[in-house]
């Protein structure tokens, strides 16, 4: 047992510099978010502050239109997740259960789309949305996020679907179930955990996206959270850093908690599908 203890100590010692650097921005965020405005720019700079100013959060909420951006982000992320999943579930099912002509080509196509980043296509996308009249319309983000996430969701779902034994469905057919019945009563209930995990990752991806939101949303009432926060910082002579950090805390912490809870599924999913 002592060997495990020594090993643990050595490992923690090795990891600690990295952990300090990882946790540093979180410290900065909290400490800034709760300090009084007057203490932002003191010399010499210091971590200490005189009191917890929780009102920063409520002030920030009103002044930066946080609520509006929050609703926009929620709408875009939820809708994009729903669209991506509705389109991905049948595709992943087909990939997992059928042989069909062009399957290999489709697989390659998915890999390619997964690699295509929005930034390279951003000009073309902007012109496309322009011609569709969707600039300044949150639905443009819904469509693009869904499209860019689909390769990942199909892949993730497929690798989980593969782990659901095919003979369960066959047993249901033998029991007199139609394909649809076996899908609804046997397959889908078993696939729910996979779908939930995939949905949450898609949600987080959409929630965090910046470039497309910055490009497509030209008026401030349509901003999503990352753009809204960026707008508080960029090109301003005076930045209200305590508000910015308060907003970052609110936008980040729930997602970080959700992610921490789910990261082991991601590791498993990638081990099952994306990498192998």
């Amino acid at each position, binding site marked *: 047992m002592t060997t495990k203890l020594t090993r643990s100590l050595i490992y923690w010692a090795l990891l600690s510099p990295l952990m300090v650097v990882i946790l540093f921005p979180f410290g900065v965020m909290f400490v800034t978010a709760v300090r009084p405005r007057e203490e932002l720019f003191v010399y010499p700079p210091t971590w200490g502050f005189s009191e917890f100013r929780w009102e920063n959060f409520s002030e920030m909420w009103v002044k930066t239109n946080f609520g509006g951006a929050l609703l926009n982000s929620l709408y875009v992320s939820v809708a994009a997740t729903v669209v991506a999943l509705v389109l991905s579930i049948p595709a992943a099912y087909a990939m997992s259960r059928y042989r069909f002509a062009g399957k290999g080509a489709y697989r390659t196509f998915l890999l390619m789309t997964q690699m295509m980043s929005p930034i390279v296509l951003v000009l073309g996308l902007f012109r496309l949305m322009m011609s569709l009249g969707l600039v300044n319309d949150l639905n443009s983000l819904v469509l693009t996020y869904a499209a860019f996430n689909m390769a990942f969701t199909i892949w993730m779902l497929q690798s989980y679907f593969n782990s659901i034994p095919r003979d369960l469905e066959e047993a249901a057919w033998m029991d*007199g179930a*139609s394909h649809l019945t076996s899908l609804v009563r046997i397959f889908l209930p078993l696939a729910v955990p996979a779908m939930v995990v995939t949905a949450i990752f898609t949600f987080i991806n959409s929630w965090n996206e910046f470039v497309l939101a910055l490009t497509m949303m030209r008026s401030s009432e349509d901003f999503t959270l990352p753009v809204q926060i960026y707008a508080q910082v960029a090109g301003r002579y005076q930045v209200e850093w305590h508000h910015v950090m308060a907003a970052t805390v609110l936008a980040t912490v729930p997602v970080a908690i959700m992610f921490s809870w789910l990261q082991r599924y991601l590791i498993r999913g990638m081990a099952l599908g994306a990498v192998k």
Partner: protein
Amino acid sequence: MSSVTIRGVKKKYGAMAVLHGIDLEIRDREFVVLVGPSGCGKSTLLRMIAGLESISSGDILIGDRVVNDVPAKARDIAMVFQNYALYPHMSVYENMSFSLRLKRMAKEMIDRKVREAAEILNLSTYLERSPRQLSGGQRQRVAMGRALVRDAQVFLFDEPLSNLDAKLRVVMRTEIKALHQRLQTTSVYVTHDQIEAMTMADRIVVMNAGKIEQIGTPLELYDTPANLFVADFIGSPSMNFLRGTLEPGAVVLADGSRVPVETTGRGAAGQKVVFGIRPEHLSLSSDGTGLAAEVEVVEPTGANIQVYARVAGMPLCAVFTERHDFRPGQTIHLAWPGRNAHLFDAASGQRL
């Protein structure tokens, strides 16, 4: 209950043929076992009867209805899968009643049938458990129960015992056989284990490389195997084969020793043949005559002794129920009753 007829059935995956034309008549109430090495097409054939694989050509009939284009759900067949395929999100009760609920049978009726089946299978106290709380043997029983409640025309079994340990396998083997004697449902059972086939079947179908090698009752296959493949596959330890040349009254081995055998009406002199004798049919000749064999390894199992020896450079195994104190290197002389000797053509492998 119903007969199953298979007429000239072939299966191809693209250019690769898996079944080369199977003809088989399974009678009403019969228990037929399809047996063969892995890859011989036995599971494919079973899945074609079930409706889980399409038929490339030929016909499959259940009763007198051609079911080629009838989907699995409408064939009224129950199947027990190798990995049981229990629905993990349903309780034992829900697993067993699933098919009846799909048929919208009345609640009380379902309840009666499930409890009846559970009674037969000793599952009554487990009905509310979920499959993952059960042992392997219990899961196996639930899979059977799911088939049992159906009153299906035909039962199909796809290597149902292969995931159980050796002891439980023997117990379940007997249970399935007893169940069939009681219910008399036409059954098709796939296995690669010849002992399972021998102990359970009314008739055995030995398959190899997509073809049927022989169909017969267990004792027919044991006593008169149609060819070398069947002779080798049925029986444990396997039949001994000695290659040689046929002469009147004997097979002459490579070293010139003569194995006496009845040759009238069996091949021509000078023909290359294979002489076959089962290990358990060999005995020590009391007078020092008979086939000389050099002992290499002796394996006592308690109930009997298995002796591995060499005859004219060829391996040979003998099983004795009485105890002997053989030593490696020792020469023993073996005899056998003439009716137990088998003779096969070396080129075609067919029985002579």
